[in-house]
């Protein structure tokens, strides 16, 4: 290995919070007391929680050290398929922390929150334009939350027509949140198999679509990184039997300015602001999953909705057919600010460019790695490509082993073992914010690892060796869960 990105430096140990500190320390500036103490009902007063007492220095050192064991997009490439780990612009953070936004109470009278309402209204317009849809709700807090919202909307639609449909079609390549969200809505997911070419054949839909099926949940481009070519025909088949088409927009990054889902048959779809629209993943959240709909579903959208009257914005709950609320207030406003800032910074050309470069990067990786790793679908991909460990079977090396070894080379591993239709899947999504040099480094690293698999497989089996810890015992963690200290 030549000059590695992953060469490690000083890695400090750091105990748990309650193993530090001393009683009486405080890391908080207690506000000045200008009122007298009032008696508390003895029966209600408790002892307070057993928290450690730490100084500000204790706290800052603790979290600074912890942060050094993490790997973020700012440290290096994060080619996680389906996650769109693109660069998180710093100016977006600045906007979100403006005091007017950060300190805003959601129940302010509308005349005192015009700035917030205007921002949300604008974002709704932008997202409707990008997706080719008619109306938007920003309320769902995450992608899965958006999927639940979409399912509820479809359910309400059918109910309003006096029909109670129990099934929904879900492709075998779908993300787990799809059937889970459908089930939460009392729909029974009916699986449909993708064809040999990785996309859903229209005949397969025609065979199962009936009047007891509420619709279909379809990801486009799909989780194999392929455009669902038959989507228009599929939409027609579903519509002809009175069903609706739900789009999982997780892979929107491949088609901004190139395809508008609303124009090719989708009735409702969700977006992931923390994927396509550059808001940070935060180690697992918060995200934001706005849902865009065609006019047919508009009456059912969650409340309140933002109304513009001349120059003024208000909130209205006066929608009798609404499905209700998914979140206490209006959604993750703090995340919306960042997405809005991103869209305003990129403009139409910038977003289209982003999609073009995302697709270019993924195809470049595909072409360069297809001799080293097995490519189940050897055709042009969109913003992500899927390989498997088939070539490495003889050496008893798995996708997991290769992923773990990538960490020693300074990269976060790609998505592994998803989608389920490819055994030993490795899904790579570089995104458009990776430069050619970084991608060339990544390709070289994977090629080196594949070579190692042949010559010295233990290097992979024992990997990773450079981060803070080696492979962890997940079996013990699940058998005897220890979930609090």
């Amino acid at each position, binding site marked *: 290995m030549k000059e590695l990105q992953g060469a490690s430096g000083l890695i400090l140990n750091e105990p748990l919070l309650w193993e530090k500190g001393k009683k009486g320390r405080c890391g908080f500036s207690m506000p000045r007391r200008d009122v007298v103490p009032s008696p508390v009902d003895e029966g209600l007063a408790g002892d307070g929680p057993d928290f450690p007492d730490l100084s500000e220095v204790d706290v800052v050192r603790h979290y600074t050290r912890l942060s050094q064991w993490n790997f973020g997009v700012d440290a290096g490439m994060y080619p996680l398929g389906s996650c769109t780990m693109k660069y998180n612009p710093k100016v977006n953070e600045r906007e979100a922390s403006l005091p007017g936004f950060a300190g805003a109470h959601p129940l302010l009278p509308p005349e005192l929150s015009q700035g917030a309402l205007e921002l949300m209204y604008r974002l709704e317009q932008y997202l409707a334009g990008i997706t080719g849809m008619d109306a938007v709700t920003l309320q769902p807090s995450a992608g899965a939350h958006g999927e639940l919202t979409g399912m509820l909307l479809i359910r309400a639609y059918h109910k309003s027509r006096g029909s109670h449909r129990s099934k929904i079609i879900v492709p075998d390549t779908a993300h787990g949140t799809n059937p889970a969200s459908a089930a939460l809505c009392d729909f029974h997911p009916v699986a449909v198999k993708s064809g040999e070419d990785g996309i859903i054949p229209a005949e397969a839909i025609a065979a199962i679509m009936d009047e007891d099926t509420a619709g279909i949940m379809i990801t486009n481009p799909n989780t194999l990184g392929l455009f669902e070519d038959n989507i228009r025909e599929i939409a027609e088949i579903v519509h002809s039997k009175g069903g609706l088409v739900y789009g999982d927009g997780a892979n929107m990054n491949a088609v901004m300015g190139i395809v508008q889902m609303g124009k090719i048959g989708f009735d409702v779809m969700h977006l992931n602001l923390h994927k396509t629209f550059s808001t940070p993943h935060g180690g697992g959240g918060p995200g934001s999953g706005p849902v865009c709909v065609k006019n047919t579903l508009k009456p059912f959208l969650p409340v309140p909705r933002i109304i513009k009257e001349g120059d003024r914005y208000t909130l209205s709950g006066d929608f009798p057919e609404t499905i209700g609320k998914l979140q206490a207030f209006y959604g993750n406003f703090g995340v919306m600010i960042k997405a809005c800032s991103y869209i305003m910074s990129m403009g139409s050309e910038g977003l289209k460019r982003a999609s073009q470069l995302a697709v270019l990067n993924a195809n470049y990786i595909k072409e360069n790695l297809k001799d080293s790793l097995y490519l189940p679908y050897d055709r042009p991909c969109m913003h992500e490509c899927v390989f498997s460990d088939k070539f490495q079977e003889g050496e008893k090396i798995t996708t997991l082993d290769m992923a773990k070894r990538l960490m020693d080379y300074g990269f976060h591993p790609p998505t592994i073992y998803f989608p389920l239709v490819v055994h030993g899947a490795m899904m790579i999504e570089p995104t458009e914010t990776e430069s050619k040099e970084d991608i060339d480094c990544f390709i070289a690293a994977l090629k080196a690892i594949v070579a190692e698999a042949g010559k010295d497989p233990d290097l992979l089996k024992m990997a990773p060796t450079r981060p803070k810890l080696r492979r962890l015992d997940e*079996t013990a963690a699940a*058998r005897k869960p220890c979930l609090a200290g």
Partner: protein
Amino acid sequence: MKELEELFLPDDVQYTETHEWVRGDGGSVTVGINDYAQDQLGDIVFVELPEVGDIFEKGEEFGTLESVKAVSEICMPVSGEITAINESLEEAPELVNQEPYNDGWIIKVKPDDPDEIKTLMHSEEYVEMLKGEE
């Protein structure tokens, strides 16, 4: 993962298509999962058991086995009533991996039809079935 030849498939039990084994005569049978199943699942971390007295049809799911990354259904080899469950699996689910045919047994059943067990496979038949699946 073990190769076909490495699997331990004893003769004193019978096998189902869904990889359970059954031991016993018509009056009371013991059920578990076989060596192929435990090998495929990997380290078992949790076993979800039915309650004594529950009644299931042949082929119906009566419980689940969880490994770290997967969940597998366990299905009834015969129709009948659950007469006992292996409570040691709560503390030691690894018994299913270590001793699949003995201490790792899962349930005991009183079959509705004592002759139903005769329809199950013997080890040679089961091996042939596995070969066909490859």
